[in-house]
């Protein structure tokens, strides 16, 4: 993790500010920073999205490939996650420096998103036990300014929304084998239903209170944080405690309640934005030129 140094006095200042519900940048404890979202930014993928949250920036690319279903779930496809903590984000990640964090992040994302409650995995099956779609979700970390999980989950949801998987036609050839034919027509494609895809809310315990969307400085003052994945209905699908410190059960309960409320509220503007962008049609993409 990109780390920043914070002196004792600065910590006290941040701590007291959070106690008074006025953070260093003027936000309240449950406010997010300004977020910008754009989908379909990389054309070599089947779906992609770029999200910036404060100075944190992530790019998600999804590639659909045909693979073999897992033996435990022969009629389901699956998702694979890979998080590339690139040196672009911070020189600490150079060489193998980002690998450990990348593994931790991708494992958590796998747990949160790869289940039938989030994505309709049955829809990804092509022929039972033989072929299915595998969605390779690759997250590229471009800038690191705290709250990676929330930014990544929003980007993944947006990228899944924009993913277009070509329709397949299965025909039997003479020898009884199956032949898979991909549709060439770019409009003849399958879209995923992202309604149930959760968003992750990270709550950082700072002093006696907790904040959402912590900056790196605030994160440095926090002993432990809780990540909660919440669907649009407010259902909690995953809870994880992160960080070295400990939390007492009471505060975990409080934080889950906040997470539920904040997470639920996060979906509304996100879906509205995605649909708005879709309705604009093929407008000129801003990408990195903006």
């Amino acid at each position, binding site marked *: 993790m990109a780390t920043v140094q914070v002196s004792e006095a600065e910590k006290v*200042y941040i701590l007291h500010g959070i106690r008074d519900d006025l953070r260093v940048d003027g936000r309240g404890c449950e406010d997010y920073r300004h977020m910008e979202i754009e989908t379909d930014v990389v054309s070599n993928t089947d779906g992609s999205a770029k999200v910036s949250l404060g100075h944190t920036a992530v790019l998600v690319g999804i590639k659909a490939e045909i693979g073999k279903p897992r033996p435990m779930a022969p009629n389901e496809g699956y998702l694979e996650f890979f998080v590339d903590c690139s040196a672009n984000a911070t020189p600490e990640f150079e060489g193998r420096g980002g690998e450990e964090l990348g593994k931790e992040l991708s494992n958590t994302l796998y747990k949160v998103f790869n289940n039938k409650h989030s994505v309709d995995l049955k829809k990804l099956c092509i022929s039972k036990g033989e072929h299915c779609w595998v969605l390779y979700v690759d997250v590229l970390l471009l800038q690191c300014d705290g709250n990676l999980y929330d930014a990544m989950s929003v980007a993944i949801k947006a990228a899944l929304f924009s993913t277009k998987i070509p329709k397949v036609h299965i025909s039997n050839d003479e020898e009884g084998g199956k032949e898979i034919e991909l549709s060439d027509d770019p409009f003849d494609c399958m879209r995923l239903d992202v309604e149930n895809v959760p968003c992750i809310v990270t709550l950082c315990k700072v002093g006696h209170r907790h904040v959402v969307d912590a900056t790196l400085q605030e994160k440095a003052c926090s002993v432990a944080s809780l990540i909660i994945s919440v669907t649009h209905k407010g259902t909690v699908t995953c809870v994880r405690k992160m960080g070295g410190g400990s939390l007492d059960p009471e505060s975990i309960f409080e934080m889950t309640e906040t997470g539920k409320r904040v997470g639920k509220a996060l979906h509304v503007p996100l879906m509205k934005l995605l649909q708005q962008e879709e309705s604009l049609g093929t407008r000129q993409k801003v990408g990195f030129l903006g």
Partner: protein
Amino acid sequence: MAADMRLPNIRKLVSLSLSAGDRRDLVVPGDVITSDSGFMRGHGTYVDEEKLTASVAGEVQRVDKLICVRPLKTRFNGEVGDVVVGRITEVQQKRWKVETNSRLDSILLLSSVNLPGGELRRRSAEDELTMREYLLEGDLISAEVQSVFSDGALSLHTRSLKYGKLGQGVLVQISPSLIKRQKTHFHNLPCGASIILGNNGFVWLYPTPGQQDEEAGGFYTSLEPISLSDREVISRLRNCLLALSAHKVLVFDTSVLYCYESSLQHQVKDILKPEVMEEIVMLTQQKLIEQEG
């Protein structure tokens, strides 16, 4: 709870107007500034086949016979007498290493600080052992550049009551080239907070202190809670500084104050929204022009 989500805006291209398109004082690497051999070569230039050539993209500045090119954005190029704000990165024998956004870490010698007790006394071996009691890794200090070593590293000193360890407040990092050089870089702003504009682009915002505690020699920091109204002023100033820096406006006490005044109709947390930033920076620039003209 508030989450502001939106699509990115397409950047408005500033059309290169004829007057601006022909500005001679803006150069890019490789541009020949002059082939007259009577000039002296300053920062950001080199001599190629007897022609004075730019090596960075920026604005040409001439002081008598000396020609420099000032890039828009760069690391801090410290000179003797500059005020800096820095962070201790390492405690070594007889010296601290300080991060000041320079190309090498700066150095604060044990002999260049005022130790508690006031008067200049010899630094004993005991002082070396208790260096961490004065300044720890992560601590922020304000200091002045005392000298520049041959490899370009800066040597700092805090031998004045106005320098020393910084207490509660907020650090904002902006590009050193946006800090305007002034007589004093310490200001008590009338809006109710104080500011140290480090030449190295580190700006320190802190509540205006009541009376100076002279006995402590600058190593005592109060950890008493700061009032909510002071906090709001500091947060607003912080966001204003970021807005000024995003639009590359020179930062000095007047521009900060005008920006603060322009931002008052907005909530503190809204200042960082792109359209609000643009609006208040524009208002600030208008006020600055009015004041000049």
